[in-house]
């Protein structure tokens, strides 16, 4: 197969993926999005004849636009721009989960610091303030007192990008020192791990320690429903146990659309890159079958060596 990979930085995750693709003799088109232009009908990226493109952009904004453009040209891309749009924004993420009746922490959004303070006071202390766009636990605030809330809100309002004036306030979930990361493909778990820390943030990127985790039936069900709620794809579904470790009850606090799997590969016995490539092959075949059913629908030409690929 010819498989494209959108990227701007090759992390360990992308390297594992590339190794697996090469081991299977797939032809790889590495597309550094920093070097490309995306027009309304054409792009400089060599995407003609690709069976599938996998989005591995580190930058959320680049991920959202690049996948949207490729999708508009009829290029099969995972994850879909629709999934990316929901997952990239914590408010949309929370809404999608709630609309699908997936248990998720109580959340309010407010647009002024006065309204945000009302939300914080209604949750009580501690509660959590998060940026709507962001990752790796950055700029997350656990708010323990009113004076801390006042200071953080003023800083965000004064110093922040306009998105920091969308105040995303959430109940604090008293998790048992760990949360659970599940990498799934269209709702089917690939592997799962716990991320533990003495700190309230347990992200692997924050130094949380990881252990493999066996999903019970309830967790399996929630992963499937959370995936469906955001439009499916290769996802990182994050759950917290409510009612203590091993309670069997969970809340889903986030679904990530350009999921990192390096830590999970190290924590589990599962060959995560191999499972991901299995899934990519299946998706590519499904896209091809859909294309055969509606031949002529896509506007991809056979250009292969042009500076600008006309689609």
């Amino acid at each position, binding site marked *: 197969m010819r498989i494209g990979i959108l990227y701007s930085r*090759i992390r360990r995750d992308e*390297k594992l993926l590339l190794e697996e693709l090469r081991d299977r003799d797939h032809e790889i088109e590495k597309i*550094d999005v920093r070097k490309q232009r995306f027009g309304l009908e054409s792009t400089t990226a060599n995407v003609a004849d690709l069976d599938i493109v996998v989005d591995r952009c*580190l930058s959320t904004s680049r991920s959202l636009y690049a996948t949207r453009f490729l999708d508009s040209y009829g290029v099969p891309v995972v994850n879909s721009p629709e999934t990316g749009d929901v997952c990239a924004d914590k408010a949309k993420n929370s809404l999608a989960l709630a609309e699908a009746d997936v248990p998720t922490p109580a959340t309010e959004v407010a647009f002024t610091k006065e309204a945000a303070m009302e939300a914080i006071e209604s949750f009580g202390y501690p509660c959590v303030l998060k940026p709507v766009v962001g990752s790796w636990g950055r700029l997350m605030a656990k708010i323990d007192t009113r004076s801390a809330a006042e200071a953080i809100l003023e800083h965000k309002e004064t110093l922040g990008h306009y998105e920091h004036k969308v105040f995303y306030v959430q109940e604090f979930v008293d998790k048992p020192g760990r949360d659970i990361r599940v990498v799934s493909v269209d709702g089917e778990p690939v592997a799962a791990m716990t991320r533990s820390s003495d700190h309230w943030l347990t992200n692997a990127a924050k130094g949380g320690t990881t252990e493999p985790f066996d999903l019970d039936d309830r967790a399996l069900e929630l992963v499937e429903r959370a995936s469906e709620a955001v439009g499916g794809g290769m996802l990182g579904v994050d759950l917290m146990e409510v009612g203590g470790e091993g309670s069997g009850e969970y809340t889903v606090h986030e679904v990530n659309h350009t999921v990192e799997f390096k830590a999970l590969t190290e924590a589990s016995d599962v060959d995560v890159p191999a499972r991901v490539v299995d899934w990519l092959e299946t998706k590519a075949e499904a896209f091809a079958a859909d294309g055969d059913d509606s031949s002529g629908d896509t506007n991809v030409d056979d250009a292969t060596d042009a500076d600008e690929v006309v689609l």
Partner: protein
Amino acid sequence: MTTDTDPVLAEDPITGEEIELPADVEVGEIIDSPVTGTELEVISLDPVTLEEAPELEEDWGE
């Protein structure tokens, strides 16, 4: 004669020192400089050239 498993040598763009990279290094890959710890990006493979990697931006992540 070099082989696929031989380490690759490149110049650290910050210190000018010669540093060793893995044999399977990729364009776009990020390497921690063994000299300064700075993140370096592999710009090309033939010859191998490195540049200081872009700073972390706010929308980076998962």
